[in-house]
């Protein structure tokens, strides 16, 4: 029997995520842009710049190539939000991962529906990226299950020992695929923050105005969700350490973004599967054998 206190707590966390994640995500994006600028020896934009960008995009007239495009984008946003709510209200980790995949599929459908060659290639690359990071994400879930004997986030988060101690290699593998999920160099194949690449903006080429704003907002939600995964690894240290660890993970990603050239999709798939197969599988085997 679920008591009402638990339910209320879940609602609070879920609602809190819906309200606060875009705020935190936007600030994080602003911080990202400043830090990136500093690494490039530039002054960089104000910290609120991502919010200005989104508000401006909402003010713009949108040009739509295909009516479905906006529908898919709204679905993408809703599914990302749903995924986040599932995660933050303490739901099932596996379900979260699959819901995130569904969200990604909607984005890909949106890009495919526009018929532009750049967007199509972007969408293809996004699918390849999903193929690349999916195994590792599942290994994260399986590893956490092996350690805590539960797929429920609320059980994982209250587990007594820090999970990172049992799954250090899985954590490294997760950081590796975070680069893909955050759309950062060397794996920003399907789209890029600055449009200097062969497929212009890739997956987001044909989205404009308010639709692009939705894309940005969804991305903020997604980032916070992913940092939530990092939080799980450090949850037992207490919230302060865990949040700091998540931010440090984000800074590491920014650093990697600035220290690498963009690589090809072939390499991305090969490398992320290799990482999943070595770091992930070995770590899980060790855990399973020790049990």
């Amino acid at each position, binding site marked *: 029997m679920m008591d009402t206190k638990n339910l209320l707590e879940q609602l609070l966390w879920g609602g809190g995520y819906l309200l606060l994640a875009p705020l935190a995500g936007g600030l994080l994006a602003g911080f990202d842009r400043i830090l990136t600028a500093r690494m490039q020896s530039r*002054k960089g934009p104000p910290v609120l710049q991502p919010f200005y960008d989104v508000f*401006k995009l909402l003010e713009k007239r949108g*040009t739509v190539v295909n009516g479905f495009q906006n529908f898919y984008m709204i679905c993408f946003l809703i599914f990302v939000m749903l995924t986040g709510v599932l995660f933050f209200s303490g739901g099932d980790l596996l379900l979260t991962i699959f819901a995130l995949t569904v969200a990604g599929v909607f984005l890909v459908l949106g890009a495919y529906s526009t018929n532009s060659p750049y967007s199509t290639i972007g969408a293809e690359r996004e699918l390849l990226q999903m193929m690349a990071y999916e195994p590792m994400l599942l290994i994260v879930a399986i590893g956490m299950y092996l350690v805590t004997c539960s797929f429920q986030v609320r059980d994982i988060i209250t587990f007594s020992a820090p999970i990172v101690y049992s799954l250090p290699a899985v954590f490294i593998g997760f950081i590796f695929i975070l680069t893909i999920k955050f759309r950062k160099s060397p794996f920003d194949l399907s789209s890029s923050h600055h449009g200097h690449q062969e497929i212009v903006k890739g997956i987001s080429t044909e989205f404009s105005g308010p639709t692009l704003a939705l894309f940005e907002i969804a991305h903020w939600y997604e980032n916070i969700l992913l940092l939530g995964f990092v939080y799980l690894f450090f949850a037992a240290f207490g919230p302060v350490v865990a949040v700091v660890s998540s931010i440090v993970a984000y800074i590491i990603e920014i650093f990697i973004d600035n220290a690498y050239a963009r690589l090809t999709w072939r390499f991305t798939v090969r490398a992320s599967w290799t990482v999943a197969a070595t770091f992930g599988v070995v770590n899980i085997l060790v855990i399973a054998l020790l049990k």
Partner: protein
Amino acid sequence: MSFLKKSPWILHYDGSSCNGCDIEVLACLTPLYDIERFGIINTGNPKHADVFLITGSVNEQNIPIIKRLYEQMPDPKVVVAVGICATSGGIFQECYNVKGGIDKVIPVDVYVPGCAARPEAIIDGVVQGLGVLEKKYAALKNKPSKTAA
């Protein structure tokens, strides 16, 4: 108050320029001038852009491209002609293949003189363009309400 002023994204197109102004536009993005301070990003995608920076004296083959890029940009938008070639054709105005100025193809909102236009002048020009952008946004906001009434 609109947020257009805080985050103008630029699209740069080289309409038969000598590269001089183009590399100055690029120099604006780089550490010494860093126009991202003002929230300006070079998008390279007309559908994301608010400010159309265009250089060069525009030859016949470029005219349809420039028109198409201009049409692909969602409203409100401004056009900034960068460099003497873009404003009047400059030293190439007597060449047989050039139109001599962007304003003969699409409406121009701000002219940035200079051969090559200095990054400082380009920043000034974009800032002036933002004022125009603001006005256009206000006009655009009033338009649908008028037709409804």
